[in-house]
């Protein structure tokens, strides 16, 4: 007994260290993107005001550049609108309905990380501003950035394409063949575009756009352009490198997209399907 007590007295710090280290490793091993975003949301509710103050100061110094860019963007959108008006002289109900499927909210970025395997951005709009989880996040130019994973009353956290846990489907704009876009760390401007059919007519510079298969992103949004490609080891699919269109590292403003039909589609998909031949 005395020996046991002596042993514990001599080694209790080491025992505490081992127990704490095991708990820490376990906590880290079981952490998921969801728990990470939950912690970030908590952190934002505490430090959100401070982040916003820092963001406002740096934003002030970039206003001139931002104005020039926005003016150019307005001009470009006016031109597109004119073309659309010419193409659709009579607006049918179905077109009007389609135009109302997506709602847009402009927001500012108050915190952004690109240095970690799992990167997120913090947005200065939350539930009080109509933001909800699973909304698509686009750059002001309309390029894919990510989607909202968590909201508090006044802030939201979005997972960006620069997150090794994010997967999204993309297709070649020219050819229509689809594949999987994912970032595997390293260069913050380049992602992988895998599982593209070996029969695809793929070329360097081809645009990769969203497929519309997911509930997050509308169809046809630019993800990036093909930088290089090669057949995989088994010669069955193409594996390409995509230069991302959105400059996520320098993101100041974003546009959030709400798919108003997402819940309806999800409800429909979750309903039991009739078996073949059933009366």
């Amino acid at each position, binding site marked *: 007994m005395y020996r046991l007590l002596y042993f514990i007295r001599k080694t*209790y*710090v*080491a025992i*505490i*260290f081992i127990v*704490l*280290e095991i*708990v*820490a*490793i*376990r*906590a*880290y*091993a*079981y*952490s998921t993107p969801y*728990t*990470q*975003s939950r*912690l*970030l949301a*908590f*952190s934002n509710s*505490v*430090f959100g005001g*401070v*982040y916003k103050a*820092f963001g406002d100061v740096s934003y002030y110094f970039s206003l001139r550049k931002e104005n020039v860019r926005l003016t150019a963007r307005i001009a470009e959108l006016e031109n597109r609108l004119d073309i659309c008006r010419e193409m659709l002289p009579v607006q049918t109900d179905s077109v009007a309905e389609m135009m109302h499927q997506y709602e847009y909210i402009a927001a500012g970025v108050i*915190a*952004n*990380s*690109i*240095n*970690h*395997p799992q990167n*997120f951005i913090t947005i200065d709009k939350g539930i009080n501003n109509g933001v909800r989880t699973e909304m698509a996040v686009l750059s002001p130019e309309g390029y894919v950035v990510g989607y909202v994973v968590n909201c508090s009353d006044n802030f939201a956290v979005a997972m960006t394409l620069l997150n090794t846990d994010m997967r999204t489907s993309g297709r070649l704009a020219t050819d229509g063949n689809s594949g999987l876009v994912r970032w*595997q*760390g*390293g*260069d*913050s401007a380049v992602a992988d575009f895998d599982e593209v059919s070996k029969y695809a007519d793929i070329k360097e510079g081809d645009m990769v756009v969203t497929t519309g298969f997911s509930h997050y992103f509308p169809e046809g949004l630019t993800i990036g352009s093909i930088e290089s490609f090669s057949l995989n080891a088994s010669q069955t699919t193409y594996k390409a490198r995509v230069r991302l269109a959105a400059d996520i*590292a320098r993101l100041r403003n974003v546009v959030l997209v709400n798919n108003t039909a997402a819940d309806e589609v999800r409800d429909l998909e979750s309903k039991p399907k009739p078996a073949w031949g059933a009366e």
Partner: protein
Amino acid sequence: MKNKGAYILFFAVVVALQILVLNHISVSVYAAPVVYAVLIVMMPLETSQFAMLMVGLALGLSMDATMGVEGLNTLATLPVAFFRRSILHLTADLSGLVKIEGVPSAERLGRFRFHRYTIVTMSLHETIFFSMEWLSFNNIGFFIARLLCSTAVSLAIAYLLIYIFTPKLSCKS
């Protein structure tokens, strides 16, 4: 510990610097400074192993709660805190000191020994931190470059903090 107030202030400064400034600076994907382990470097020489462990735990939990990662900072900080005394003996050879107490500094330990102790402690923390963050054998070249650059930047900032805070921590209140 006679200067608890100065150490509490140093803890607050190091945590705030990491959370509010360094975590939001994106100089390069290769350089992500993690400097809060400098607090462990600067703890008084006479600090017991148990007290070091508690300081490491508090530091790790504070960083985890605010950086949005569960356990990563704690699991990197605890070994550094636990083995700090061994690192000190291995790198700075305390046998020549009359009294093993006070803030570790170039004057107290000798310039070369103090630098060796600081570099080894900070590097150990950075290595554990980035290895656990990466958790992959992919892009090993990128990982090594990121580890080396981040450690170099962290050490530069750590030395700046040491330079500023050593006189304040050494004051006897």
